[in-house]
């Protein structure tokens, strides 16, 4: 009896309802992604800034424990920067893996010279430096792409650097059970090799395809 009611409901209700009941479960954000991808070019994942950011003046420690001066080390090189932490199961590894897979795709692109491919710098700055030591960062990034530059240092320095590119992060907090809550940045920022300015932003919903499509332009400092 209940079954019959269900069928009737399915017929009268929109098919969307029927499908949701089946648990196909593409949430609202999923639809947005699908629309972005379906109409290539019209609604891009990339946001090109009218007023680009200056590259943060960050001097931190890399995964080898060596001093890393961001401006000096990435000068004249196309650079993607993301602020996140390794004890982050969802968005941080997804973002970094999306970029890493897109970089692998770029390696196959015959239209891009070897020198240009090699010039790309991908930088992961921890927002949880207490737990993300050089060694912890190195281990985590090895599972994604060992060429990624992982940076740690004092939280205040990192927070101040992030703020200059519009990324607001708060220090990790520990609750009474010892559970640490950290924050990650919401955006990946692409810096131009021509101007060293951060001129393109990618949100959390940017996909491998978005990065793959845009990297050839980004490494030349062009608008994607």
């Amino acid at each position, binding site marked *: 009896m209940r079954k019959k009611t269900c069928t009737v409901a399915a017929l009268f209700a929109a*098919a969307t309802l029927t499908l949701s009941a089946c648990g196909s479960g593409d949430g609202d954000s*999923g639809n947005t992604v699908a629309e972005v991808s379906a109409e290539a070019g019209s609604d891009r994942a990339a946001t090109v800034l009218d007023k680009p950011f200056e590259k943060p003046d960050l001097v931190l420690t890399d995964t080898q424990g060596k001093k890393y001066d961001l401006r000096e080390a990435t000068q004249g090189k196309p650079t993607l920067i993301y602020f996140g932490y390794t004890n982050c199961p969802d968005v941080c590894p997804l973002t970094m893996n999306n970029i890493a897979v897109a970089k692998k795709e770029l390696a196959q692109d015959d239209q891009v010279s070897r020198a240009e491919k090699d010039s790309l710098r991908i930088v992961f700055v921890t927002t949880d430096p207490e737990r993300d030591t050089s060694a912890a960062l190195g281990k985590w990034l090895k599972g994604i792409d060992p060429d990624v530059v992982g940076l740690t240092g004092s939280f205040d320095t990192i927070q101040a650097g992030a703020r200059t590119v519009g990324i607001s992060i708060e220090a990790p907090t520990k609750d009474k059970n010892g559970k640490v809550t950290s924050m990650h940045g919401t955006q990946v920022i692409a810096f131009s090799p021509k101007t060293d300015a951060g001129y393109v932003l990618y949100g959390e919903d940017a996909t491998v395809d978005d990065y793959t499509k845009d990297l050839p332009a980004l490494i030349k400092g062009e608008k994607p």
Partner: protein
Amino acid sequence: MRRRTASAAALALTAVLASALGGCGDSDSDGSDGLSVGSAYMPQPVSDSMAAGFLVIANDGGADDRLASVTSDLAGEVTLHTTVGQTMGQVKDLDIPAHGELVLESGGDHLMFEELKRKPREGDTVSLELRFTKSDPIKVEMPVKSATYQPSAASSSARSSSHASHASHASLSSPSAARSPHSSHPSQSSHSSQSSHPSHSSMSRP
């Protein structure tokens, strides 16, 4: 986008399909409640220290319920997390509204697996048991996908193929439903449809 495609297909495929699809999310065949689980997956984690899991729990019933706890063969601890803005935090339970659904998705609420007993790899399956405030527990087989898998991304060819198979399954592989839209054996189409849908986790009650 996806839903529009689906609705066109549903309209074209007559009431048989609608009936079968309606049945597949409907777990009332055992008469206990109206919860069903779909779209479960785990992105292959970076390390063996933690992993995230996503799924959708639909509540066809008229009463609210809550996802209270989760256990898994993979992890010493599975916790429920919400993401508010840029901050992820643990919560005690998650609401599953009547005639609604609880969506755990990337960038939002998720299951967090810690104290992993092995590193899950793409192609593996992780077993879970979901426990609720009111309903009986539900067992879920959660497939491990690539680290960059996004269920609704256009790049995933799995999406279109899963749709094709969803439709073909509903119309072709449910002979009892095909012969009679108002079959007196709804549980057959309901169960087979659920278990053989490639993009859905298989589901069973203990």
